[in-house]
């Protein structure tokens, strides 16, 4: 379980990205965070794995305080939290498999990892992760040769290879075309349902949020302004979160989703 306890985050420059946030995410939930750019979505997600620790209050993940955790405890915590990025963050100059094996670093001694001597068991876990997202045939291809959709699936495989209890996805479809965006969201939904992994996703496409969000949380200027189910979230709710009327840019469109819902 993830619990935000009056958590605030102020960046060194003085920008307050998160204000006094209290939020509880139960195990196994698929929660989607919506809000405009700069509303604090990325900061919220990075507070969970301590990439951006809270400056006031605290975030408790599976009983561990992110703010008080030592470097070692933080690494242990991160090993149980997979992360997926908008720009994929793959190492382009190496193979897909090496990228996915990054998810096994936490289980590999420093010497073994320096010489690339991964245990066969860890290679097997990486291969299974690639199979789960249907891209195992690319295992020995250089990551630079992948399309955007393929690259994001490798990103998901890297997160899965950690065997995580939580997956964080920071704008996972913002760099993809609409059909591919839906495919990636469906992958995340399937992983959440089949493996019971708690999944927290940042999105700014409202139609996607509504379709895939078991729960939607709205952020505006670092403050929680909405917390409810995807079904409840109608146009008025989104207008309130965004603080303005909605435009065509706020939806991904191309209704290839199984149950696409117009706003």
């Amino acid at each position, binding site marked *: 379980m993830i619990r935000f306890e009056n958590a605030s985050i102020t960046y060194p420059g003085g920008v307050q990205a998160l204000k006094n946030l209290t939020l509880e995410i139960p195990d196994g939930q698929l929660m989607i965070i919506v809000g405009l750019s700069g509303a604090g979505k990325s900061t919220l997600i990075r507070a969970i794995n301590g990439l951006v620790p809270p400056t006031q209050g605290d975030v408790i993940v599976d009983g561990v305080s992110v703010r008080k955790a030592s470097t070692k405890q933080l690494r242990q915590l991160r090993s149980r939290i997979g992360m997926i*990025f908008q720009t994929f963050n793959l*190492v382009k100059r190496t193979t897909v498999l090496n990228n996915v094996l990054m998810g096994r*670093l936490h289980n590999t001694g*420093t010497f073994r*990892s320096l010489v690339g001597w991964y245990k066969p068991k860890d290679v097997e876990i990486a291969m299974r992760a690639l199979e789960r997202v249907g891209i195992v045939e690319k295992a020995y291809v250089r990551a630079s040769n992948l399309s955007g959709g393929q690259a994001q699936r490798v990103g998901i495989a890297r997160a899965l290879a*950690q065997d995580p209890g939580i997956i964080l996805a920071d704008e996972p479809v913002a760099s993809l075309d609409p059909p591919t965006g839906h495919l990636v969201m469906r992958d995340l939904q399937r992983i959440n349902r089949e493996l019971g992994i708690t999944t927290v996703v940042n999105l700014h496409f409202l139609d996607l949020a509504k379709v895939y969000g078991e729960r939607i949380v709205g952020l505006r200027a670092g403050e929680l302004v909405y917390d409810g189910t995807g079904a409840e979230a109608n146009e008025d709710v989104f207008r309130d979160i965004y603080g303005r009327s909605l435009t065509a840019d706020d939806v991904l469109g191309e209704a290839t989703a199984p149950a696409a819902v117009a706003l």
Partner: protein
Amino acid sequence: MSLTATQENIRPPKPRPSLVVPIGLVAFLAISWVATSEQFGIGLDPGKILEDIANGVGILGDLLRPNWAFLPKTVEPMLETFRMAVLASAIGCSIALPVAFLASRVTAPNLLTYVADRSVLSVVRAIPDFLYALIFVSAVGIGPLPGIAALILFNIGVVAKLQSETVDGIDVGPIEASRAAGGNRLQTVRWAVLPQVLPNYVAYSLYTFELNIRASTVLGIVGAGGIGRILLREYKFFNFSNVSVIVVELFVFVFVIELISITLRRRLV
């Protein structure tokens, strides 16, 4: 719909052009003029070059007629130069890699390490290889060993500087991914940073190898082994046809290294 609904949509005045470039250019020309003038500088006189060029023609003629009979005598010292360069490059570049990671803001563990490493590196670079050779010759005596030691320090200075600046310019996304996956610092450097900078590292290492082959001609002058000793001797006896043979050999060496460098880089990029 206006993208900037809250701001007034007015074109800003054109910023004033920066004066840095024109002032720099004028300063450069002025300094050059002072430096070449007779009173303050080196007293550069283009006419003198033309006057003296006749003296060079005889030497040039000898240089264009390499005495190939001399070739067998250069083989052993050339091999010594080659062995010195291989050893110095291997050791110097191996040390330079971790030093480079500590000298980049992206991979250094803290500011202190970064500043300390960079300061030491500038000192290492500031001392010319010739001076290193002189110091080591006086310390351990004449032979290839002081030459190798001098080249190692030279290589660390060059490769660590170039490599650390390459690391500064990498994509930091994979670093965040590695940290988020629970990787420690060394693992992150190995799997998120090294693959990105490996082609440059190979190129820099081959480049210093090439520099080492050439530097050995200078090092030989102070008794630090290699082809330089023979080159100096032939030069002193005005055997420019023999000097020519050595120059051609050096050229072939450098050319072959360049070919290997291009091939390797293409494989790695």
